[in-house]
């Protein structure tokens, strides 16, 4: 006759299994705690898409456009947000292009290098520039 299940395992086995299960539950609590502190929606991309919507309508449907932006810690994220908003245009982080997008979400428009001229200011720190030295 089959012995009752409670006789099947040593105390050591039961202890290890208990520790294992308790650790899983504790790890779960930590996971929930982390997700609670993950904050609310931070859809910067949607906001960025809205900032660039007017510019996008004025650009050709494809091609390469230059880029100039702020030179602070958020310079790289700003660039990718611009690329994301303007895709399928390829945004090259260089001013050696006929058309250049200027992205200054936090600062005033700076003094641009000579040769660059503002074609249109779309507001919210978004400008379209042209490089007169490139033909």
């Amino acid at each position: 006759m089959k012995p009752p299940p409670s006789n099947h395992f040593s105390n050591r086995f039961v202890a290890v299994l208990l520790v294992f299960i308790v650790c899983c539950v504790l790890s779960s609590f930590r996971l929930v705690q982390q997700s609670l502190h993950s904050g609310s929606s931070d859809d910067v991309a949607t906001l960025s898409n809205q900032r660039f919507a007017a510019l996008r309508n004025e650009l050709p449907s494809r091609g390469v456009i230059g880029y100039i932006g702020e030179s602070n810690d958020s310079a790289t994220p700003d660039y990718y947000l611009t690329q994301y908003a303007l895709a399928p245009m390829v945004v090259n982080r260089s001013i050696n292009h006929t058309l250049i997008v200027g992205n200054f979400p936090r600062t005033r428009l700076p003094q641009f290098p000579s040769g660059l001229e503002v074609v249109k200011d779309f507001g919210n720190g978004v400008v379209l520039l042209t490089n007169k030295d490139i033909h």
Partner: protein
Amino acid sequence: MLLALAIALCAASGYLIVRIAWPSLAKGTDRLLKWSLAVGFGLGFSSATFFVLRATNLQHFLTIDALCFAFLLGWYFLRGQNGSMGLPQAPDCNLELPPWLHRFLIAAFAVTLAAALYSSVKLAIAHPRGDGWDAFSIWNLHALFLFRGGSYWRDGLSPLIPWSHPDYPLLLPASIAHFWTYLGTDSPAVPAIIGLSFTFSTLGLLYSSLERVRGRTTAMLGLMTLGTTPFFIEQGSSQYADVPLSFFILASIVLLSIFGQYPAHNPRPRGFIVLAGLALGFGAWTKNEGVLVVFATVLASLLVSGHSKLHEPRTKESEAPEWRAIAILLLSAVPVFGLVLWLKHVAPRGDLLQAPAVMLQKFLTPARYWVILKWYSRELFRFGEWWPISATLLFLAVYFIAASREMGPKAASLRIAIWMLILTLAGYFAIYVITPNELYWHLRFSLNRLFLQLWPSVVFLFFSSVSFRSFNNVSK
């Protein structure tokens, strides 16, 4: 409405692919196994179909999807249940716990599953465009070029976009773009739902496959291990491609294990090998590491097969199917692998390979090996962000205290899976040796994700091969 149709076609196509290769009448457990596989295979299939249409500049996505579905449905009905083969009965090895411990396990299982579900959804809502720049600047950006670029999708492969890795495979971006095309807009909900689908189908696949080989109690322990790995849940919601790749690696190992359950002297159902090969192909279509996994699997199969031939003399007739199985495995991966090769052909070269002299110099620098080895050892016990004790430490404790020492792998499929993971880790190691990036930086930002890709398979292999020591065994 169109989106619902796209989801239905995707899921149904995935299910039909699984059922064509595995035509058996399902019982409850196998149904979960099949549906878990169907989610990944459906997403992989719709991604590949969408990409082929994009690459050939065809526009009628709905028509082609419907035709593909009709073709699969026709194939399924034509095949019928002629090739029907029930799975061999799994050994009766369910871990029968004392009733109080069993109840405690069920309660803990429910809590951890609910926590995983809650955290995943909460994280997905908190980071609708993915958590981390790779999600945004690589995967979703590629999806955007495939969606908005139309026939000019290749502009997205431009080397002028820094750090966008144009040589990366496109399973995830093409799958996202597929649903965006039906929806008509680039809704952030799509990549988030695809991420969650892969996360929970990986959990479902792990649970149902462990239940098949080891019973329900062990399956619950396995799912709890993976579902309470904070890094797995976070990455699943982050819209990176590591969890989808982990799904396909696990799927190939599970399918090879099921194939291995059939006695070698009987004709074995090759459908499982075909599905395993497809999973490997989809893995290669997900991330470059998946290409490495394909080679690791083939090499592992050859190693185990060759070893068996040398040390377990058999007749020529009985040995032949193993070689055939390896060939079928490889051939099944070829169609999707072909897409990867074509993409590699049209995209700029990746940034990992440098001039042979530079790579040789790095290969001959022992200090690099030492650094990588130290990171591997450290990450092994830190990986997963478990709290308060690392899951790998708990595995060691379970093995040394509660498991039988008869853990040594016996089945060829198990040995293949273990070698596959070892060779893949060795491949990752070699990539770090030659990396053009600063070594510490590269290790810091990628090693935990590389481990994550293999983690579900490690959990499966651990729980499917460990034998828990019973009271009777201990007393002997």
